[in-house]
């Protein structure tokens, strides 16, 4: 409803923070940039990131399927981004653990989408879950859960 614009249509500070985070994620992290990852969505409830298909990320040259490591990097990256997106202030985080179930190989030639959410946050630890899928969310190729340590250094300052 373009006629009824109000302040809700203007990006507020948190939205701008999310936009800066999205930019920092894809451009400020060398490995994310090397993988060609793109942030599609970044809100406090979840993060959606695209990993475009690239021949240099192939694990099996006979079939052209992506290496599991590229999926690992996608799930690690979007899980960490989900923690950042759920924080109210930016503090450094460190991955404690990441457990991944590989359900099936990614289909060659297609992007893989990573979708992560931070489903619980305590004073010290954030808990995430994520899926990697192709085409539709029903077509899941990998599933992961992770835990992240929140830095205490900056929280005190």
């Amino acid at each position, binding site marked *: 409803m373009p006629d009824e614009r109000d302040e809700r249509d203007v990006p507020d500070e948190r939205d701008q923070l999310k936009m800066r985070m999205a930019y920092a994620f894809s451009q400020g992290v*060398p*490995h994310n940039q090397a993988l060609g990852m793109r942030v599609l969505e970044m809100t406090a409830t979840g993060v959606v990131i695209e990993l475009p298909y690239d021949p240099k990320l192939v694990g099996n040259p006979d079939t052209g399927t992506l290496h599991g490591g590229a999926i*690992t990097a996608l*799930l*690690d990256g979007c899980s960490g981004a989900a923690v950042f997106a759920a924080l109210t202030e930016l503090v450094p985080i460190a991955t404690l653990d*990441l457990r991944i*179930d*590989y359900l099936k190989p990614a289909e060659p030639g297609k992007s893989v989408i990573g979708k992560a959410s931070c489903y619980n946050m305590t004073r010290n630890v954030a808990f995430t879950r994520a899926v990697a899928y192709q085409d539709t969310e029903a077509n899941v190729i990998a599933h992961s859960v992770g835990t992240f340590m929140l830095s205490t250094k900056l929280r005190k300052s």
Partner: protein
Amino acid sequence: MTLIDRLTAAKASHDYQGLIDLVPYATFLGLTAAMQGDELITTMRYGDHLIGNASLPALHGGTLGALLESAAIFELLWRAETAVLPKTITLTVDYLRSGAPVDTHARGIVTRQGRRITNVRMEAWQADRGAPVATAHAIFLVMRS
């Protein structure tokens, strides 16, 4: 030649690096492999594109996960009598320290080899092997066709 054929040839000629050069993603990460004593050690040569945190700087967690998974797969390919591509079912990585911008080494140890399922433990270290940057365990489906 299929991957399996080339793998069999690489094994016959003890060409460890030939095994790795077959995999584009391994080249992207800068992986090399060499026997050190009776251990197959996989090394991820440092490159700026592996960085996840530019201000520390520290390696991207995904690169350590990929190194650990690769070290396990190379171990399985190398030790197995018949060449079968292992399929990763689960991978669990414990991140113990932030990865410095230097070369990282890893090895996999088979904890159980079954008819269909193989369990592997892995660890990755940098200057000090006694202070690993990450450890992991993985379960692979290894079906002989």
